[in-house]
């Protein structure tokens, strides 16, 4: 039977072909199909943890989380969708068209809940939960959102939150960050994001072909972020921001011995919650504002130091014995260096060091500066911490700049003249400093010769990190140097002709130095930096008003702040 053999053989061949197809499906492509089958039936339901809170030095909350309630609608659980949506609309108080539109926008599949209303208040959410048996399709989603109980307060210090950008993602992917993560931008939120950051947890569940829950496969509980305690004092910060309101500039208050930042405000400011609500209009206003409200001027702005730099020059001259306490120069309103006239802002006649500091006499410091030479001034400025960041634990701190003859030659291809030295002696020309550097320099005379490292975070979780934060460097200045300069700083306020005499009326003794830093073509910058109480300093302050005019205006702001602190019983 030839024909039967042919038939049977072809059937066997067909069977073998099927075995080959089966082998291809199961063995060669098995991995791919297993992945496909896994995707079919496993769903991940994410659960958000709460981001760590930010507390002030007395553990009062500055930034926390509130629960936001979103209403989601799962249409496979209802028989009458429109009727149910109508009821939801009535309860949360919107008209039914809005909610139907929202449903239509959010709809993906009947097995996937669609968000129909966001951010409803807690009472309405509870009301909806109570009606669960009548409205089985309604699911309330809890979502922790950043909340700022004090609004704009300390916004630059805190920073704001936003979806991770590509640049940060490449930098932080190794630390477990993923796309769509919410991370801090600027301030403590960014610097300590690693600790504040919550871990997303979730359920992995098995679902059937209609997306209905079958069983839980695994549960990873979400991890809350760690709370961070700042050195900031909420009360003083409030006083500072109130006093600074309406000005452009910044104020820093620091504890001189440890470097704890007590208050830090920059103006204009912004409300970080607009980055949570993400209203496009408000966001573009902020990003496009010419006043750059997002910039923390305390650390990210470099300005000419003006007369505040005279303190550095004085210290350098005393240390190098170019002058002593009895050295005098005569100020007749101007002096000639090279072939150019350099002006003083007044005619002070005979000036010794203390008087020169008190009156902020330019001529005295032109001459002292010329005795020192530019390189020595540069070296002492570096010693006092200028030209490099202070190491404050906030991002985007800039270095500022201190020029030197060598730099001038290498970068500007010009010879450094005595005129440049004279300019440098009064903190003009190429000298650029940040307000935080000024505060730190001032602290040296408040604490007896230590260059502290400012810091803002006192504790992470329950762990106090102050001891590792404090890194003070002893500058090895002579006691007499510190004493003379302290005396001079006191006389700025106490001397009836002192530039900071406006502060003399306060019930505590203040010492400090004003500055009116020229910033042509605009108005000058107003500076005041000092410390108080004079005998036993507990606070160093720096007030900076961008294009604020004469230093006097900075003194007025400082006065208001110190008054507020006195009346608040905070000193």
């Amino acid at each position, binding site marked *: *039977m030839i*024909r*039967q053999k042919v*038939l*049977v053989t072809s*059937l066997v061949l*067909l*069977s073998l072909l*099927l*075995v080959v*197809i*089966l*082998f291809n*499906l*199961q*063995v060669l*492509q*098995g*991995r*791919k*199909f*297993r992945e*496909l*089958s*896994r995707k*079919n*039936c496993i769903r991940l339901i994410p659960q958000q943890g709460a981001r760590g809170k930010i507390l002030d030095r007395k553990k009062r909350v500055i930034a926390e989380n509130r629960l936001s309630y979103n209403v989601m609608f799962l249409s496979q659980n209802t028989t009458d969708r429109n009727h149910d949506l109508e009821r939801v609309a009535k309860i949360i108080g919107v008209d039914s068209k809005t909610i139907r539109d929202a449903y239509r926008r959010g709809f993906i599949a009947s097995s996937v809940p669609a968000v129909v209303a966001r951010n409803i208040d807690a009472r309405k959410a509870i009301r909806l939960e109570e009606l669960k048996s009548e409205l089985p399709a309604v699911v309330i989603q809890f979502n922790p959102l950043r909340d700022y109980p004090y609004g704009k307060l300390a916004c630059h210090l805190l920073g704001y939150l936003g979806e991770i950008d590509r640049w940060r993602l490449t930098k932080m992917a190794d630390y477990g960050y993923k796309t769509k993560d919410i991370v801090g931008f600027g301030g403590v939120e960014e610097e300590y994001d690693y600790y504040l950051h919550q871990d997303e947890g979730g359920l992995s569940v*098995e*679902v*059937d*072909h*209609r997306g209905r829950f*079958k069983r839980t496969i695994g549960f990873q509980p979400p991890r809350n972020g760690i709370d961070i305690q700042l050195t900031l004092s909420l009360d003083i910060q409030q006083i500072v921001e109130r006093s600074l309101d309406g000005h452009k500039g910044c104020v820093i208050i620091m504890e001189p011995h440890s470097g704890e930042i007590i208050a830090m405000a920059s103006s204009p400011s912004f409300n970080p919650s607009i980055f949570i609500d993400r209203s496009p209009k408000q966001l573009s206003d902020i990003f496009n504002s010419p006043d750059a409200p997002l910039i923390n001027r305390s650390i990210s702005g470099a300005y000419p130091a003006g007369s505040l730099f005279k303190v550095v020059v004085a210290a350098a001259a005393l240390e190098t014995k170019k002058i002593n306490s009895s050295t005098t120069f005569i100020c007749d309103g101007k002096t000639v260096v090279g072939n150019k006239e350099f002006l003083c802002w007044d005619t002070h006649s005979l000036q010794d060091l203390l008087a020169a500091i008190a009156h902020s006499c330019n001529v005295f410091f032109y001459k002292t500066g010329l005795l020192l030479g530019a390189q020595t001034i540069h070296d002492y400025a570096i010693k006092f911490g200028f030209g490099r960041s202070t190491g404050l634990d906030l991002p985007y701190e800039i270095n500022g700049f201190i020029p030197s003859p060598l730099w001038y030659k290498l970068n500007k291809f010009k010879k450094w003249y005595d005129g440049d030295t004279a300019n440098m002696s009064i903190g003009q020309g190429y000298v650029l400093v940040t307000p935080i550097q000024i505060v730190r320099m001032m602290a040296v005379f408040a604490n007896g010769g230590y260059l502290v490292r400012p810091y803002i975070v006192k504790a992470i979780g329950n762990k106090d990190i102050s001891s590792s934060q404090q890194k003070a460097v002893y500058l090895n200045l002579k006691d007499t140097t510190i004493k003379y300069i302290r005396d001079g700083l006191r006389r700025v306020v106490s001397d009836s002709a002192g530039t900071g005499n406006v502060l003399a009326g306060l019930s505590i003794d203040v010492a400090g130095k004003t500055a009116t830093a020229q910033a042509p073509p605009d108005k000058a910058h107003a500076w005041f930096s000092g410390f108080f109480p004079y005998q036993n300093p507990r606070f160093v302050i720096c007030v900076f008003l961008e294009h604020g005019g004469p230093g006097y205006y900075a003194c007025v702001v400082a006065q208001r702040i110190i008054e507020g602190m006195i009346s608040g019983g905070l000193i």
Partner: protein
Amino acid sequence: MRSAKPNIFIIAFLITLLGILSIYSSTFQKEGRLWEDIYKKQTLWVALGMIIFIIISNISYRRFWDWTYPMYAAGLFLLLLVFILGVVRLGAQRWLKIAWFNFQPSEFAKLTTVIFLARYFSKKSPNEITLSSRRFGIFRGILLPFVFVAIPMFLIMEQPDLGSAAMIFFVFLALLYLTEIRLKYINIFLFAVLFSFPILWRVLKEYQKQRLLVFLNPNIDPLGAGYTVIQSRIAIGSGGLFGKGWMAGTQSQLHFLPESHTDFIFATFAEQWGFLGSLALLLLYFLLIRQGFIIAGRTQDTFGKLLACGITLMLNLQILVNLAMTMGAAPVVGLPLPLMSYGGSSVVTTFFALGILVSIDRERAVF
């Protein structure tokens, strides 16, 4: 020579056992008592099938020679009855409700057609020893039997049940080839059929056309007609070498795979038992079919030989087409996997057919 009866019985028993395991695993999670009991029903059908197997195997197959025309007529009658009284399920009218169960006459009609063909081609003229079919021309050799085949085929196709109809046609072709009809006639017939395809295409229902197109590319309709094939391939493929384990097949148990206990039972099985388990199952089927061809080979009687061949071919083609369909290598046509798929008519008819095979084998021993 040893009787094939115990071999066939044991192999069939093993296959039905695997079938019941798979049916249980794919239905135990479904809601409702109806679903929970489905494996029990299948067990009852298998038991009934085995009783029928034993009864038929003890009846002389020559009796079917005498009963050919009444059986053929009964088959046609049942098919017509489906049109009048049939139960409509899944868009097709294939079942007759008899007492508490649904009966699918097309299963029975397949068998009666095979018996009819076996008898037709093994007729001998009274005064000669040679087969009369050897002298058949194209009319008596092909066209006349085709008319007899075409009537049930057409009725089944109209149910619509393209798979069973095609099955009858393929068995007819294979049996033609096995008889002494000249190849030239068969070729002419094949060409004629080929040229009538465009006409046949118009006769097909919309969903059948869709299925054929989807077979060519399942991705044209992933949520509709292509869904089953895609999910079936995922189920089989995800089984891998060793399978996911019994009762651990996500595709079938979470109902991503439709018809997981009937036509696509092999996907359910392959997902849980993997390539090795599937090979074992295929081996069982191979041994079963092999027994059928061995019986056909050692039977001297032409009617017995053709009947054995026809039955074995019928089973073999159904198995091949069903497996190819679950793997996406053939269009989705509603064909059960014999002995595995849930369904009383299929199980009982298959055991009936196996009973005839054993009966043929027994008669041979008597000669």
